Each structure stands twice: as C-alpha cells, then as structure tokens.
C-alpha cells in the first residue's frame, strides 16, 4: 500500500524539496501546508499516514500541530524537519507525538533515510 504524505513547512522551496525526494521514494504527496492551521485542515480531509513537520511557522507552530494531529490519529508517523538544533526541542517534539527529528539543512539522502527509519519502526 502506498502511504500518503502531508508536508508542513512555511517555506515553499523546502516543501518542494521534500516532495521531490519523498515522491521519488514512493510516498504519495497528499498535501502541502504552509502552517499548522492549514495542516490540520488538510490532515482531516486526506488522512495521511506520514507527516513531515517544520516547527517555526506562523499561525500555529509545529509543536502545537503535532499535539493536535496526534490527538486526531495517534497512529500517524511524524518526522520533524526543523532548523531548531537543540536537544530540548527534539525531546519535546518526540514527547508530543513525533517519532523522528531531522535537522535542517538536510540532504535528500538524509531525508529518505530518516523516513525509512520512521516507517521501519512502524512495521516492527
């Protein structure tokens, strides 16, 4: 089964970069959201199994969005993709329901590897 992916980032070029890499990896790009509020709307409509989540965004930040997505569907797999490089932020994101953390800047190889780990943990 092809998994649906929702990409959440306030940067258009980062959304495109993630879509190119993970589309080629085999995920179906089900939605692109520039902030947490938009992500919640798209998530409810398309019910993706996988989400990449930025943290610093206008309107609703990534931590709050992770909390809300996890409340809607605790099975959703969330990879945080953020420039915030401190351990405390990563730990908080994981506590709120994310399963992985990838620090910007990232290469496409690092991204696909991180998603691969996220999905292999789901399977095990």
């Amino acid at each position, binding site marked *: 089964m092809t998994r649906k992916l929702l990409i959440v980032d306030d940067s258009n070029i980062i959304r495109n970069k993630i879509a190119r890499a993970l589309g080629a990896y085999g995920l179906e790009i089900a939605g692109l959201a520039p902030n947490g509020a938009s992500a919640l709307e798209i998530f409810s409509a398309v019910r993706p199994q996988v989400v990449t989540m930025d943290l610093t965004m206008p309107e609703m930040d990534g931590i709050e969005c992770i909390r809300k997505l996890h409340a809607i569907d605790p099975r959703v797999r969330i990879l945080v993709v953020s*420039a915030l490089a401190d351990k405390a932020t990563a730990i908080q994101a994981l506590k709120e329901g994310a399963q992985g953390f990838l620090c*910007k800047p990232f290469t496409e190889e690092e991204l696909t590897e991180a998603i691969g780990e996220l999905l292999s943990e789901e399977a095990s």
Partner: protein
Amino acid sequence: MTEPELRVFVAIVKHYFEQQTGIAAEVYTPFLADPDALPVLDYTGVIGISGNRQGCVYFTAPAELLRLILSRSGETDLSPRNLADLAGEIGNTISGNARRQFGNEFLISVPLVVQGRDQTISLPKGVKAYVIPFCWQHHDASLVVSVV
C-alpha cells in the same frame, strides 16, 4: 556577542554551504558593522531573536547566489518569490542551528524577507552588529548578527 559566540555563526555558515551545495564558502574575518553602512543585497532574510538573548540576525545575498543554490538543489522555479523564500530559509536555518550552542531559550521568529539593495534594515539600538562576510561561487554575501 563574544568572539567565541561569533565563531559559532561562522561555523554554521560554513556548514550550511558545504552541506547544501557540496561547495565550501570562503568566510572572511568578521568585523564590527558601521550602523550607517550595513550590507544590504538583493534579498535579505531577517530573523528576530528573543528569550535569553535579544536582537536580530540577518542573511543578505545577491539574486545570482540564491539562483545557483536553488538550481543545485533541483528546484526549477527560480522566480523572485522562491529567491525570497530561500533568503528567509537560510536566515532561519542559521539562527535555528545556533540553538545547539545558545539553548532552547534562544527564540527565533519566522523570517521577514526584504527585497532590494536600497532597503534599510533596522537593528536594535545600542546593540553592536557584527558582519560575517563570505564568498560562495564568486558571489559575496553576509550574515549580520546583532544580539545582546
């Protein structure tokens, strides 16, 4: 801002270009900025800093440098909108990476992007600004750090 703290930003700039493009940026010696002669190039991404530190960090670059980075990343849309987006994203990434050293109370805003060389960047009054000049692929750009 101490010299070791400035070196944190120098290291982050170097890492960004090496990691994203595979081509190192040549980073020159940082210097204290003249508030009346701050570098402002085609696109400037400004990040406000609050929390345990106050001030701002901005990244400013010529359009051609941004076009080259986008092209190398596989992006085909080299419109002004995406160049502005990249300037903001680089400012955001460099500031966010600084939290590894400055901690999670080093709060960063979403980017504000200013377009055009005739723009003025307002820095916090009474706070020294340091320019970290660098060159990547024959294009000069700067990171300006004004944080107390």
